[in-house]
């Protein structure tokens, strides 16, 4: 190629490269060719306004005096809403400027929360500051030169002091913000925009609005988020500001978090579905585990949602939604790290790696390890890093997480239905059903009703002190407008509980409303509302009309149907909520001591006959009744047992044979619904021929560890006329013996649900005395989830010749929550007399 041609190609290449950088990589142009670069940041872009209704109700200067501004807005409303009549209010809210006025009033009203929250935060931060300063002084007073360890610790302490002091310097209330030009700009923009103000006032849990607006102003000031030209970016910023303010987390961290998600969106690394998520789910993504370095004493590696941790997940675990449910397993399950330190001493567990892996929880967990808590935090925050809604959830002695996959919530690494959500859409309510209720509440189909209901509720909230009777009417209107608005239910209940207007009569009426409007579709949520907000108030009010109270309490059971909105899909693993807690609370409210009071039989009979025919409820209530039964005196036991049986069998007197039949069906129901608790509780009602058989099986020699199947439950591929479910419990008890008997199944199986996860050391099977050919080709399988596609073979047993089969798992120590004995082949019956699983319970 000639020199001239080379020059020509060189110029061509330069032009192409510069053009490419101008359009696609402005940061490279800024670096290499600054003269040609585009201006960066939102302020320089000609903002294309996001479509929506806008009107300035009050100028930002009015917000310097929030109380005065509140009065002005209230006066605008009062001029058009004379009597707080629900129809009148609904009519008023039809005009968008009126909705905007109510939103602005709500934002100002939440200023009171801001002040309280800011005071608490200030105190917490001041305490932290004092503590850190004392630590530094203490390390320096020894007089000797500081060790390297002490120097590093003091450096970290100094960084924390600087961060806390920075936080002190930022405006936090609306008054402070309105005085700052940047702050005034945000106040004007938010309060004149119907959609934006709606997000802050009505999109979910109320947050201290001073802190929300202050955070938005900081985000805008960063120049890295386009608040005025991109709806997605504005949503990210607003969602982050709301969630960080709600939890009292650092505003600086909120800015970092918002920029992280915005950059992820811009670079296409966020799941595309994020854009279409309802706003409350965007809040979930942007606010999950956002704890930063400045919330009082919180620091370091426990912050799975810090930006460095999320960045690690984004770069190393970019996954589709359905794979995020298993993302936790990217990190190794290790109780002890390689140095042998146990996870429960997390300082030592991660200490050797912190300098190199950094303060990145997810990087530490993936490289060093963790147990259920660490792994579930890894899974949930990895979902958030990908823009997919998720939250961790507490379960008995376990931590799991829940991920949004398509239109479903999928419990992940879950071992029990008893899960309490760590991220709460309705503050103070950690029930799993809350997610399903919010799905419907904020769905497109319900949104108009929800928005109206939220506005009415907000109006009611502003009137609680000044006009309680109007507030009462408005709360009721909010509920009638949108019966699944839990915010309205909760706030109304709390209002009645704290205001003299809330007589016991009113509270009983509220129970009745809940029975009629809430229990059918969301029984768990209704129970949570009653137990947390209504029953304590009724207890305090000392309700005298016991019959009316009892009626409304029993009516709850009349209205229950399914166990909850997700029961159908999830029935193999839960389909269950804590009905025992509710019935216990009801008994307490009625003044019945279930273990001692003769009235208990009548109450139990009434409840059971009310739910008769709803097997899932009957099973759970009988399980609860069984635990009470054990505590009773023999005199009371007899009448109580009759009540249980009468209740469960529709009130008829039953023979022993019928009782066994009833128990058989209840046991099978417990097994099918995965109700381990009921299965074991029912053991105490078994006829003695099952618990103390005349010819018990000899106890086998155990494997090392514990009998981890004790307290577990079985489920077989089918039942048959030869099956006696009353004998299922004994199947897991060495020295007792029991049986199960399937129908003629192809690839028949029996699954044992262990009460806890365990590292298995061995399994002992006791076969039947005859028909051993039916037991050929058994395979022992294990699983941590029990799902159909998640079984792992640990032993293949071939031809069955022995009565006692010992499967040694000593070298592999597989971790399992479920053990399954699969009998390959058939169709053929399948039966065993004993299954004993040994191992060491996992953390």
């Amino acid at each position, binding site marked *: 190629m000639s020199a001239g041609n080379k020059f020509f190609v060189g110029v061509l290449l330069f032009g192409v490269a510069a053009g490419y950088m101008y359009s696609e990589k402005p940061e490279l142009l800024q670096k290499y060719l600054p003269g040609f670069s585009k201006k960066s940041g939102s302020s320089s872009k000609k903002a294309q306004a996001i479509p929506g209704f806008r009107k300035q109700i009050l100028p930002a200067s009015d917000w310097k005096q929030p109380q005065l501004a509140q009065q002005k807005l209230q006066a605008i409303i009062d001029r058009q809403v004379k009597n707080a009549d629900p129809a009148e209010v609904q009519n008023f809210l039809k005009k968008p400027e009126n909705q905007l006025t109510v939103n602005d009033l709500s934002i100002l009203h939440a200023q009171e929360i801001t002040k309280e929250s800011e005071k608490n935060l200030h105190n917490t931060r001041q305490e932290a500051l004092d503590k850190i300063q004392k630590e530094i002084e203490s390390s320096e007073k020894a007089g000797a030169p500081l060790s390297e360890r002490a120097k590093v610790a003091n450096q970290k302490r100094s960084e924390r002091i600087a961060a806390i002091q920075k936080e002190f310097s930022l405006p936090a209330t609306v008054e402070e913000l309105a005085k700052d030009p940047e702050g005034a700009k945000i106040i004007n923009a938010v309060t004149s925009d119907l959609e934006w103000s709606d997000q802050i006032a009505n999109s979910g849990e109320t947050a201290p609005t001073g802190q929300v607006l202050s955070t938005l102003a900081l985000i805008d000031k960063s120049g890295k988020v386009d608040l005025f030209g991109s709806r997605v970016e504005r949503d990210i910023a607003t969602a982050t500001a709301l969630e960080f303010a709600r939890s009292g987390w650092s505003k600086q961290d909120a800015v970092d978090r918002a920029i992280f998600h915005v950059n992820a969106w811009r670079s296409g690394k966020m799941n595309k579905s994020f854009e279409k998520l309802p706003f409350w789910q965007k809040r979930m993504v942007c606010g999950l585990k956002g704890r930063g370095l400045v919330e009082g004493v919180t620091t370091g590696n426990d912050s799975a949602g810090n930006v460095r941790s999320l960045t690690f997940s984004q770069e*190393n675990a970019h996954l589709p939604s359905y794979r995020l449910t298993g993302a936790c397993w990217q990190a190794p399950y290790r109780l002890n790290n390689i140095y042998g330190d146990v996870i429960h001493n997390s300082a030592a567990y991660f200490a050797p790696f912190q300098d190199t892996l950094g303060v990145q929880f997810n990087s530490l967990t993936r490289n060093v390890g963790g147990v259920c808590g660490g792994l579930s935090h890894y899974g949930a925050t990895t979902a958030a890093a990908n823009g997919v809604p998720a939250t961790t959830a507490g379960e008995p002695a376990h931590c799991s997480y829940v991920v949004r996959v398509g239109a479903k919530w999928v419990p992940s690494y879950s071992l029990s239905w008893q899960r309490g959500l760590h991220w709460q859409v309705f503050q103070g309510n950690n029930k799993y059903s809350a997610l399903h209720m919010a799905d419907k509440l904020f769905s497109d189909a319900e949104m108009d009703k929800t928005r109206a209901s939220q506005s009415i509720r907000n109006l009611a909230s502003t009137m609680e002190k000044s006009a309680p009777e109007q507030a009462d009417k408005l709360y009721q209107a909010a509920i009638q407008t949108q019966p699944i608005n839990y915010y309205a239910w909760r706030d109304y209940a709390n209002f009645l509980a704290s205001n003299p207007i809330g007589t016991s009569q009113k509270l009983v009426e509220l129970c009745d409303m809940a029975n009629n409007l809430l229990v059918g579709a969301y029984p768990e949520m209704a129970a949570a509302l009653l137990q947390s907000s209504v029953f304590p108030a009724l207890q305090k009010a000392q309700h005298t009309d016991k019959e009316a109270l009892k009626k409304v309490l029993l009516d709850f059971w009349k209205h229950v149907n399914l166990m909850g909105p997700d029961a159908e899909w999830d029935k193999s693993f839960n389909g269950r909520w804590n009905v025992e807690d509710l019935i216990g609370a009801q008994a307490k409210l009625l003044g019945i001591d279930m273990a001692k009071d003769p009235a208990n039989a009548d109450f139990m009979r009434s409840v059971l006959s009310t739910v008769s025919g709803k097997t899932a409820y009957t099973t759970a209530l009988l399980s609860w009744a069984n635990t009470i039964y054990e505590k009773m005196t023999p005199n009371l036991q007899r009448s109580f047992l009759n009540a249980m049986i009468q209740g469960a069998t529709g009130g008829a007197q039953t023979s022993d044979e019928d009782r066994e039949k009833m128990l058989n069906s209840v046991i099978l129901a417990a097994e099918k619904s995965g109700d381990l608790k009921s299965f074991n509780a029912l053991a105490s009602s078994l006829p003695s021929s099952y618990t103390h058989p005349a010819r018990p099986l000899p106890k086998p020699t155990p494997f090392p560890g514990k009998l981890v199947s004790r307290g577990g439950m079985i489920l077989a591929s089918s039942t048959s006329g030869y099956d006696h479910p009353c004998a299922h419990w004994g199947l897991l008890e060495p020295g007792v013996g029991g049986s199960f008997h399937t129908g003629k199944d192809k690839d028949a199986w029996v699954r044992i649900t262990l009460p806890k996860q365990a590292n298995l050391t061995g399994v002992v099977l006791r076969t039947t005395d005859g028909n051993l050919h039916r037991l050929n080709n058994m395979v022992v399988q294990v699983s941590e989830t029990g799902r159909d596609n998640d079984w792992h073979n640990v032993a293949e047993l071939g031809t069955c010749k022995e009565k006692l089969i010992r499967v040694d798992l000593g070298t592999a120590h597989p971790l399992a929550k479920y053990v399954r004995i699969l009998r390959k082949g058939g169709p053929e019956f399948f039966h065993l007399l004993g299954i004993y699983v040994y191992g060491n319970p996992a953390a």
Partner: protein
Amino acid sequence: MTYSFPTLMKNVILPGLIALVVGAPELTAAPQIAETYEAAQAILQDDGYILFAYAEDWDTYSKEVCDVLMASPVVQQAAGNAVFMRVPIPDELTEERKKADAVRYGKLRVPDANNYPALLMLTKSGRHYATITGPYMMKADPEKVAAEISKALQSMRNQEELLTKAQSANGIEKAKLLGEAALIPGINPPDAPRKLIQQINKLDPRGETGYARKLVPPFDLSMEIFAIESQKDTSKPHGWETALKTAEKYLKDTVYTNEQRQALYAISIGILRRHVPTSAARIRKLARQMQKLDPDSDLGKSAGTVIREWGTGLTLAEGWTPGIIAEKKPVEVDDIPPFTKPGTYTFTLVRDRGNHNCNVAAISLYDGKKLIAEDRHEGFVGPNKSENTEYKLEVSTVPSSPHLFIQFNQKGSANNSWGHISLSSPQ
């Protein structure tokens, strides 16, 4: 197939133009692309498959990354005669999708990647031997990706050759070939390590090749040794002593790989830290050995932190803990104060917290191995009372190699005390 113009420009046209200018005949290999398993069979050769797995419409960049890499001449060149297949990963896996995938991929088991986009490299028989993913994939850097492909492909060829030889070998020779194949770095072993160990143990029952030991995952060594540490049989020595001896024994066995040896050092450090409060010097030594084996590994990098956090014993500033004062021998102070001039150095015991007294019998200063100053008297600090808490060292000549020791003098097991030692130097 559609590309965005800028991406094409950066990764295809520009390299093409450059090739045109400088001349690069090696950038002209044609890719073998198959859309289905069936189509792949017709063109399948020794280098197996490379599956380009990307997000199917749930992100906006990974498909483009894969398209660019597939079209890149350097990537094609590096891939030898491997068949390229696109593997779009859906956001939700429905039953319909599973069925459609089963038809499309046939007998090919598409492995899951931890991160997308990813290149999944499979042998001709469909065995998954490598995954290429990470930041350079995200940046669609063809040069870097091509280098990784080349490396993995060459390793796989070597591994397959060893496995082919192993098929016709027996006994020790077969064990050796299998072990070598399993330990080729950068790619997956041909089977799960535990299965390979079982197989090698059968071929080499006396462990002459050492490969069964080499294949033990490092974390399994720690599980084994920590199980010994937690033994509570009172008729035997402390579990931790046996555990430490086991780790030392393994460290003497030269068969173990550097990675395994690093784990054994970490295990020993952990045991010492938990059970021997005055083992700072030993910990420092072990950490340095661990670091030397591979400074860039996670454990190698952790050595510095270990030395700083755990390799420092008793210091005046950080003070004593119940573990340290339980020691019956004199404990050396790690942060030696500056003995810069002759005179009286006064050390004072300062209690920070705890329910019990801290008793001291003596503070002694050595220059090298020579005792040059000592204050020996019974002193104590406690929650209710403190007596004789000052220890004065008369230093007549400045020591060139100072070593300061404190002799604690605790009674029984009453060691619940934390505190530090303040120093007043001569003016």
